[in-house]
């Protein structure tokens, strides 16, 4: 008995280094896994990269055609503090003139994980995004000649805590973003730069959650890893201009694997100011913390 206690104590001591480095990351809140969404920002710090996001935009309100290739990287500095960086290559075909190509503006972000409530599958994040002036083709592609600072709040809520009487609703989850744009110049080339209020939501139904937590309905690969969703995002100027809200509605699906996910969405303009017709988006997104768990997939500081 004494030996058994000693052995148990020794085993616990031997395991301590592992305990201190148990990794969290990813979009987890208790039983809930939040995938990285394609349109709206994620409410969690992570070590992940979207490479690439391929977007065929709907026809612009001025008749222009646009095609984008974007890269987004998220990196944890500590378990709760992260940074993001995004850059894109654009092909723009204005109506009646020649096409232009080149880089769009550089965007960076600083994120802090405010809370994770496992019991209620709730997660919240504060972020400060900056779109940097003169980091893309200003004249040809409309990249900004001013810097914009955008503080925001991102959240996620899974509905696994609903009563057992409504089991089929438990796989639902919602994530959302609220932010405000503060441009550093009030006008550019005679056009006003308004403060914009940005808001977006992703409504998800997780088949993995259904299969693993609610009811094993016998789904096999790849269906047991699918997450159908609808994303919406809008931007409303609050001063300096009289123009209206613009935004898109994007129904789609995400396949979330062990190391990566693939997502595809249709892009539907929310109103005439947002464009015409339909577009589409395809994204390959990699979980660096799973691919490189002992190197670049870990926070730079702390565990």
């Amino acid at each position: 008995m004494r030996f058994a206690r000693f052995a148990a104590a020794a085993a616990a001591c031997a395991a301590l280094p592992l305990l201190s480095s148990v990794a969290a990351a990813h979009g987890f809140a208790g039983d809930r896994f939040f995938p990285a969404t394609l349109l709206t920002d994620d409410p969690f710090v992570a070590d992940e990269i979207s490479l690439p996001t391929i977007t065929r935009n709907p026809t612009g309100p001025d008749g222009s055609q646009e095609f984008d290739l974007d890269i987004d990287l998220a990196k944890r500095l500590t378990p709760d503090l992260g940074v993001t960086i995004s850059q894109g290559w654009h092909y723009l075909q204005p109506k009646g003139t020649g096409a232009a190509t080149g880089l769009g503006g550089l965007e960076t972000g600083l994120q802090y994980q405010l809370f994770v409530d496992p019991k209620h599958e709730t997660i919240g994040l504060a972020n400060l995004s900056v779109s940097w002036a003169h980091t893309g083709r200003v004249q040809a592609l409309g990249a900004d000649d001013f810097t914009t600072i955008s503080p925001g709040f991102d959240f996620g809520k899974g509905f696994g805590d609903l009563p057992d009487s409504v089991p089929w609703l438990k796989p639902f989850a919602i994530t959302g973003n609220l932010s405000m744009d503060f441009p550093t110049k009030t006008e550019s080339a005679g056009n006003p730069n308004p403060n914009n209020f940005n808001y977006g939501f992703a409504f998800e139904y997780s088949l993995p959650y259904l299969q693993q937590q609610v009811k094993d309905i016998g789904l096999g690969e790849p269906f047991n890893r699918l997450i159908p969703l609808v994303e919406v995002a809008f931007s409303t100027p609050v001063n300096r201009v009289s123009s209206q809200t613009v935004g898109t509605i994007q129904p789609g699906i995400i396949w979330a694997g062990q190391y990566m996910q693939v997502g595809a969405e249709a892009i539907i303009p929310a109103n005439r100011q947002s464009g015409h017709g339909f577009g589409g988006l395809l994204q390959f997104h990699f979980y660096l913390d799973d691919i490189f768990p002992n190197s670049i997939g870990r926070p730079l500081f702390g565990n």
Partner: protein
Amino acid sequence: MKYALLLSALTAAVPLTQPADAHAFLDHAVPAVGSTVAAAPAQIDMFFTQDLEPAFTGASLADANGQPIATGAAAVDPQNKAELVLKVPRLAPGHYKVSWHVVSVDTHRTEGSFGFDIQR
């Protein structure tokens, strides 16, 4: 454009060259998640998508009122390190909830829960 596609292809190949370590998700369980079984099981078997770290892996059982039920300690099957076994006492008909928490061998932690019923 060519370079972007090449970079994507290279990055996509990375996971294929890595060992199979990642977050462990529940693949399936016996009794099955959300199932109703005719006879009380002697144990609950949970099969995960990754091998598990036994020192930080566990499971518990509760009845329909959320009251914990005394069980044996959950253990990783030495023959299949992706399988977690929870020995349970003789269970009466009713609803039960299994809660699990696991750490995969690359130290990623996940948790979950599911219910099953024993037919009356």
